[in-house]
């Protein structure tokens, strides 16, 4: 196989690079070791669009965070994914921490974050009544927002595919060998010859980078555990609530999600195994305690699931974005931990421009900037919904009761490019199985639809990657 650009990693950063690169007149290919895009860090995080006040001044984190935050609303319209500017709030609980809060405020102002306000405890409570009683001051960031991380990642992937980018899944990179002009990338699905490599491999970005460069990267997987609560609890807070950042990073936050659930987390524990996504009783207790320090009476009894995600923490502490010093045509997007989700669109746009310049490529004449989401009748007005179902009857057959997801939506999720090939892929695209019964009712039917659409046997239907078949063979 041959391409101009090979992107390694189908997370939010890889898909963003693919999307912006697909506007240029070049061949773009993306590989991922998993069965679907959005299968690593991008699927399990806080789903926050950070305003950008806390990344240190002058860092790449700050630069791309603020730029990404400013792009996000427009992008959500262009690519039709859920985004809501709900504002975020940093709590300062004690008088002695006030200088620290003011430092954060000033850091934000210096970096150009708009809509920052210092509030007294009373002012903060007036707009967010559930805050802890022990409150001294708060910083309000009006530009703080929430986003659907699956929606964002998959929208960019679909838009890239619409512009001709090719997605190859279940395709693990084994080695990269420098060529005279470009690289030979050895993968589980054969050799790929490419002029440019983009390293967006998340927690494995150090391994990919170190295949070609002597300036070694070292990425630690930092695990964060979360609890997600029922939609009944979704309006417990309206803003995203942080505690003033300390030594331990940003700490636990409490936030509504764009779909109306309540989220609390993450913890932060460095793990040796880059696949270690187990949750632990101790960590879940810790996050429950920490979240309860911020917001009163969080209805943890209404938890519908707990999960964990791994952040790619690079030793240097900052994002590593750009062309590798000792490997021409090898572009890194490594160490993309928080605020990576927010930064991803800006990183994608930036790298795409750099790569186009490197390749001397111009923009396509007939590029597609817009992408429409899978129609969601439950979000339409009653009349619209009735009309839509008249012409699309399969959107009238509910499969997932809890989230009100129809057969039509599930089929469309599988038919899109790149489409869902697993239960988790369906869930991330249309939320079937993401509700309060956690797929208890819809599993059999969703399996059937997947088997039909993919032309496979029920026994081959997987939860996610190969080996996760739902029916255990003899």
């Amino acid at each position, binding site marked *: 196989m041959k391409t101009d650009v090979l992107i390694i990693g189908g997370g939010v950063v890889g898909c963003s690079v693919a999307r912006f690169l697909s506007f240029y007149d070049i061949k773009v290919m993306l590989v991922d070791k998993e069965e679907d895009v959005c299968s690593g860090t991008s699927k399990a995080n806080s789903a926050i669009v950070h305003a950008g006040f806390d990344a240190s001044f002058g860092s790449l984190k700050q630069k791309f965070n603020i730029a990404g935050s400013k792009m996000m609303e427009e992008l959500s319209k262009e690519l039709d994914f859920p985004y809501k500017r709900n504002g975020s709030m940093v709590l300062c609980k004690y008088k002695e921490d006030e200088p620290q809060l003011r430092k954060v405020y000033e850091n934000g102002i210096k970096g150009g974050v708009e809509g920052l306000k210092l509030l007294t405890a009373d002012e903060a409570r007036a707009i967010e009544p559930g805050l802890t009683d022990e409150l001294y001051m708060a910083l309000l960031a009006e530009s703080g927002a929430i986003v659907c991380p699956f929606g964002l990642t998959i929208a960019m992937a679909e838009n890239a595919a619409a512009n001709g980018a090719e997605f190859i899944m279940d395709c693990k990179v084994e080695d990269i060998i420098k060529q005279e002009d470009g690289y030979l990338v050895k993968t589980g699905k054969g050799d790929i010859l490419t002029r440019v490599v983009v390293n967006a491999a998340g927690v494995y970005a150090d391994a990919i980078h170190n295949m070609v460069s002597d300036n070694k990267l070292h990425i630690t997987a930092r695990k964060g555990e979360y609890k997600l609560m029922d939609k009944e609890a979704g309006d417990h807070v309206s803003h995203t609530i942080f505690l003033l950042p300390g030594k331990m990073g940003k700490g636990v936050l409490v936030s509504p999600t764009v779909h109306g659930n309540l989220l609390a987390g993450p913890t932060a524990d460095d793990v040796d195994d880059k696949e270690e996504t*187990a949750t632990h009783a101790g960590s879940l207790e810790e996050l429950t305690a920490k979240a309860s320090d911020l917001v009163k009476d969080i209805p943890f009894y209404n938890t519908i699931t707990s999960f964990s995600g791994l952040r790619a923490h690079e030793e240097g502490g900052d994002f590593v974005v750009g062309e590798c010093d000792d490997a021409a045509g090898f572009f890194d997007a490594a160490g993309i931990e928080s605020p990576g989700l927010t930064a991803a669109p800006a990183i994608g746009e930036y790298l795409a421009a750099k790569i186009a310049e490197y390749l001397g490529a111009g923009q396509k004449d007939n590029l597609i900037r817009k992408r429409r989401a899978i129609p969601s009748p439950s979000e339409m007005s009653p009349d619209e919904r009735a009309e839509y179902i008249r012409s699309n009857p399969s959107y009238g057959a509910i499969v997932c009761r809890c989230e009100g997801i129809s057969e039509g939506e599930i089929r469309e999720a599988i038919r899109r490019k790149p489409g869902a090939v697993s239960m988790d892929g369906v869930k991330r695209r249309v939320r079937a199985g993401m509700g309060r019964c956690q797929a208890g009712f819809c599993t059999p039917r969703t399996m059937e639809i997947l088997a039909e659409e993919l032309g496979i046997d029920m026994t081959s239907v997987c939860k996610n990657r190969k080996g996760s078949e739902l029916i255990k063979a003899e």
Partner: protein
Amino acid sequence: MENREIVIIGGGPAGLAAAAAARQNGAEDILILERDRFLGGILNQCIHNGFGLHTFKEELTGPEYAARYISQVREQNIECRLNTMVLDLSADRVVTCMSRDRGIETIKAGAVILAMGCRERPRGALNIPGYRPAGIYTAGTAQRLMNIEGYLVGRKVVILGSGDIGLIMARRMTLEGARVLAVAELMPYSGGLRRNIVQCLEDYDIPLLLSHTVTDIKGKERVEGIEISEVDAASKPIPGTEKFYEADTLLLSCGLLPENELTRAMGAQICPATKGPAVTDSLETTIPGVFACGNVLHVHDLVDYVSEEAAHAGRSAALYIKRSSASQHRTVPVVTFGGVRYTVPQSIDTLEMDDKLTVRFRVGSVIKDKKLCLYYDDDKVSSVNKRVMAPGEMEQIVIKKDSFNGRDDIKEIRLGIED
């Protein structure tokens, strides 16, 4: 907008029995809305026997029990719309529903009977630590895949929770060739019926580990192992008691939750103990003309009691649509004490009630050799010796209308347990 006398939401055992009884009590125009492609609800996948001893004096399987009611409903020419999901129910009894064939419809109902059933408590709600691989199912999902679709979900199975579906599935999967390694139960007593411990576990030498829970799930793609630990009196795992089972599947049978999304959205009061709507003796919710029965009202152990309760709701709805003028009421709350967790109904209209009313209740822990006492205000009106009562089994007591004669000022009915 379509107008119907009675709309019944759910065509499972509760909805079917409610429909049949409403017809028998004079309702002409009844519509059942069912989201699945068959009537009978969860009974279709409960292929084991043990249903109907109370109602039909014979032992039937779930599908056979359902078939009796389905025939009744057919013979009575009661209209059923299958594959139809109710999206919304308003307090003035406008039902919005949707199906592939008919699209979105709104129906104004004279009375509504809620019979939506319940769902299983999922892993997430149990906060079980560990990985999230394939191979973790609620017992009912595994049961559906086994008995309706024909797929055995796993080969080496651990079951958490000793609810009846879990016990039944332990036997079912064993018969289909799986090995069930253990059933772990957090509480010091079983959550299921004693007969099921005997015929589903003991018959097949499956160990039941009381006061145990799952403390870890191993395996990144598929379940590879389950760690079980003993728990202390506060249900906390005791370090050092971990046992590892090489299993590929974890089934969860950890309780059922009434499905009251529509009920809540309509604004009906929900009873915190049952998680179902609070009802009067006619099984009417706090929204006039909306009745509830079956597992949406409170989780039952026996379908026979569901049918009985549903017939009561059906009759009440039929009477409601015929009632022209407001009658006199004297609604008295039923209050619980001393280990009775809840009652259904939560209040009794002592003027309008039937001559005999069955009050169903559950206890919060295993109770041995105590007295079940009924008070009208401060008067003890009955006291019954109870050898044993367990949270897994629903209990009942009959209250007669004439027992309220001469008690015009009664404030409270109290049901509880005393030594």
